[in-house]
């Protein structure tokens, strides 16, 4: 076992881990942060997407040893102060969640993306975010609509 220290949603953890363990397994089974889902365990579905130093990654194939000294954001860190993030609110509003299994990964990825690209277009969101996620339920349209509403209201606020 090897020791790793890293932050998740601002909290610092120090753990003993198997040196070949993955970030997704450690988050779920050592830290009980089960909001991050494991869909395929081969980086092919995006359900396990978290932010590593602000960068979306498929945590099921990220070696935990790469995370030593780094910062992770998961779905548990998206809502703050007991209040849902606008992306979460709009997802509910637009019915963009059915079984919910893909949702956490998409919300986390979208949050990072819209912070970097506040004027994202529908094309941007489809090509730069949703191409990294498989949803078997919704057909993605409701997510696109939700994210466009978030962009729109952020633009209004900026003015």
């Amino acid at each position, binding site marked *: 076992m*090897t020791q790793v220290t890293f932050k998740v949603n601002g909290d610092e953890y120090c753990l003993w881990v*198997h*040196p*070949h363990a*993955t970030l997704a397994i450690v988050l779920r089974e050592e830290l009980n942060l089960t909001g991050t889902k494991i869909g395929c365990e*081969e*980086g*092919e*579905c*995006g359900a396990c*997407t978290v932010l*590593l130093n602000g*960068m*979306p*990654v*498929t945590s*099921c*194939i*990220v*070696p935990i*040893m*790469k995370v030593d000294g780094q910062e992770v954001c998961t779905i548990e860190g998206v809502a703050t102060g007991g209040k849902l993030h606008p992306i979460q609110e709009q997802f509910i509003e637009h019915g963009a969640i059915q079984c919910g299994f893909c949702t956490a990964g998409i919300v986390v*990825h979208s949050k990072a993306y819209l912070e970097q690209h506040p004027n994202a277009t529908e094309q941007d969101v*489809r*090509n*730069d*975010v*949703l*191409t*990294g*996620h*498989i949803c078997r339920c919704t057909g993605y349209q409701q997510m696109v609509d939700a994210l466009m509403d978030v962009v729109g209201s952020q633009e209004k606020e900026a003015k």
Partner: protein
Amino acid sequence: MYKESMAFVRQEEYLKPGSLQETLGLMAQYGDDACILAGATDLYVKKHTLKKVVIDISGIGLNYIKVDTDGLRIGACATFTAMATELADGPFRIIGEAAAKLGSPQIRNMATIGGNLCNAAPSADGAPVLYVLKAKVKLTGPQGSRLMPVEDFITGPGKKALAKDEILEEIQVPFPADRTFAVFEKVVRTRGLDLALVNGAIAAVIDANNICTDVKICLGAVAPTPLRIKVAEEFLIGKELAEDHIAVAAEIAANAVSPISDVRASADYRKLRCLVLVSRGLTEIGRQASQI
């Protein structure tokens, strides 16, 4: 039986050397008990192939992308996101274009060009553009470095011409000749998160009279390795890039490949897509050439 100079590996380890020299030292120390890892996006999908000792080289300073007087030098650990961003414009933009099509945004954030080449899949998305731009790989071991044309590096599915004590250090791409035009296409079932069922790149030098004076065509996922289609290249050189020549070249290319049928596509469909890829690619090159 054990060598006195070799470490005993009692259990799994994950090591993060800080330099190329340290890496080579660890490779010598652990031999067959160790494997090299960069982005982990290929290796962690097949964890049963991991050795007991993982040597993570992402911290040894090979994540650069720089252009100097000789051309482009990409460190083996440069990520696909970095290549897509930093090579979006300029003489090597076809590399950026290809890089943007691998996997998904999340995968591109971790996956490295060195890892893509060393995984040596016939469908490697990083390979075709490097083949047609006459790239070289720099392989480094305890005895020093050697350069090899990239097309000699991948020797079979999952096989590469890398000695046991070497690592792939960087990829060197010379400046394309004047009036070089290039295209890349990845034929996929979904917009993201899919392996190419066919991919390919074409780089051609088209003179002011629309004559093709040089051309390189590379098709992937249709042979045991990415494949240069030399018969089609030989046909085109010296000829005008006209519709009828393009059609013949595309036909030659489709006949030159012998793809397999698998979950992604049938062999017939792959042959057809090769024809379309070469046809559309050459047409687009002709269009680009006519615009300058």
